[in-house]
């Protein structure tokens, strides 16, 4: 396998984790978040610092998850107060706040980022295999959550929180759990990314990253784990396959995005089975 393929597969795995975890928050629990990049970044920075300090891979991964989920819980608490249609924009704010904060923090490398993150010690292919294993585990977890009573309750909260309350489902705790779980996974993805690039810079976790992740969720079919995972793979590889067209790349990409959503608004999942109705307002 060439180094190029390995690096590509690594990013694919990371993006799968990110998209599937965002789907837990936005798809299952209905909390639209356009700030997933912030949790991803928080995980990456936490892992980078721990990795440099301890050179211990498991510790760094755990640190990434922990910081991601703690931040997620804070945002979750904040989100409880805002009206649901404000949430998307509030989370955009979280993303800008995160990048704006990091840019000015000397101990986080500020504009310069953090480099010389120690290698995982697994080698490029070992790294890639680890990432894929985590991606598979994330997908499995997501499928399980959806099949469990938690997933069932998520759906109720997503559709009508007040009505859910009359069935003894406490929307607040479910939202918090969704945020904590989704952002912990995003933190994990960040940690894996830090090991993958060995150099992180806040630009990798900006608003555009968050938007791309949301695009993966929507294109995959909101709420469908498999659809979202496939979309993450496709949306990561697609721009690569037409790398040769260079400066027309974004143009084509934007065009395809528009075209796809116009033709299959229910996402990939709806192409396979009739989940269209679930996506209706």
């Amino acid at each position, binding site marked *: 396998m060439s180094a190029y393929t390995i690096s590509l597969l690594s990013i694919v795995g990371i993006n799968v984790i990110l998209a599937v975890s965002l789907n837990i928050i936005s798809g299952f629990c209905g909390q639209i978040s356009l700030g997933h990049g912030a949790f991803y970044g928080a995980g990456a920075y936490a892992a980078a610092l721990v990795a440099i300090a301890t050179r211990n891979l498991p510790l760094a991964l755990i640190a990434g998850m922990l910081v991601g989920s703690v931040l997620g819980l804070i945002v979750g608490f904040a989100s409880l107060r805002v009206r649901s249609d404000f949430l998307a924009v509030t989370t955009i704010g979280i993303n800008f706040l995160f990048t704006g904060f990091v840019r000015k923090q000397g101990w986080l490398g500020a504009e310069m980022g953090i480099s010389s993150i120690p290698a995982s010690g697994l080698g490029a292919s070992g790294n890639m295999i680890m990432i894929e294993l985590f991606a598979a585990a994330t997908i499995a977890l997501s499928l399980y959550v959806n*099949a469990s009573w938690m997933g069932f309750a998520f759906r109720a909260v997503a*559709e009508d929180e007040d009505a859910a*309350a009359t069935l003894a489902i406490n929307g607040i*705790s479910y939202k918090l759990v969704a945020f904590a779980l989704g952002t912990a996974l995003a933190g994990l993805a960040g940690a894996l990314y830090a090991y993958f690039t060995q150099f992180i810079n806040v630009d990798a976790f900006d608003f555009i990253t968050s938007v791309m992740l949301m695009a993966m969720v929507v294109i995959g079919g909101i709420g469908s784990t498999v659809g979202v995972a496939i979309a993450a793979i496709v949306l990561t590889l697609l721009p690569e396959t037409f790398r040769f067209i260079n400066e027309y790349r974004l143009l084509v990409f934007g065009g395809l995005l528009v075209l796809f959503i116009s033709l299959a608004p229910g996402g990939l999942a709806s192409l396979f089975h009739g989940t269209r109705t679930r996506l209706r307002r």
Partner: protein
Amino acid sequence: MNAPVLALHNLAISFGGVAAVDDVSFAIGRGDFFGLIGPNGAGKTTLIRLISGILTPNSGRVELLGEDVTHRSTATRVRRGLALTHQIVRPFRTMSVLDNVVLAAGHMRTVDPLRALLQMDRHAERERAMSILRQVGLAGAETKLAGSLPLGQLKRLEIARALALDPTVVLLDEPLAGLNNSEAAEQIDMIAGVNASGVTILLVEHNLEEVIRASRRLIVLANGRVIGDGVPHDVMRQQDVRAAYLGESVETYAAG
């Protein structure tokens, strides 16, 4: 009367100057069947919202099973044995009828997200949901999306969900609206059956005939205040109740 399951003490709330509920107190004993009537805008729905915790009162207390729940969330109250139906129906429209009820039947599994995460099996809940759907007359509709049901059936779905919670007290807000006479009669018989099995009922209705037939005690609200309270036939003889509520139809019902 045995120990009250639900007691209201001087409840009051107002919206921008309008006193929607004004110093309301009463208590419902276990197994009782209360009717709550009153003119449009009297404050009945508001009262139900106060009891269920969707609204918090400006003053007064709500006691459920002897415990002060005035500042508890709706979910907590439901966990303690309260169930309610909405006047303006609120099903989970994108779920099947069955799932709507299964979710309610599984409320013990979903009280806490972490416990919910560890559980998958829905067999028992499905069985129970099916039998409740049969009870409310929705058998055959279980696979339909709740969003496509006609209004009359949505009213039944609301009741089915409430029953699936296995409640001690049920608050019903106009469960008969949108049903024709015999459907309404069936429905009220069904509710009476539920009451007979020991569940306490508080019923808000404008279908007087049925309320009077089914409830053992009637409370009349007007402008947020209780203006009548007692055995249905006695209350309906009160002049002010008839004036406020019945207008020209007084004769029709006086005969009853």
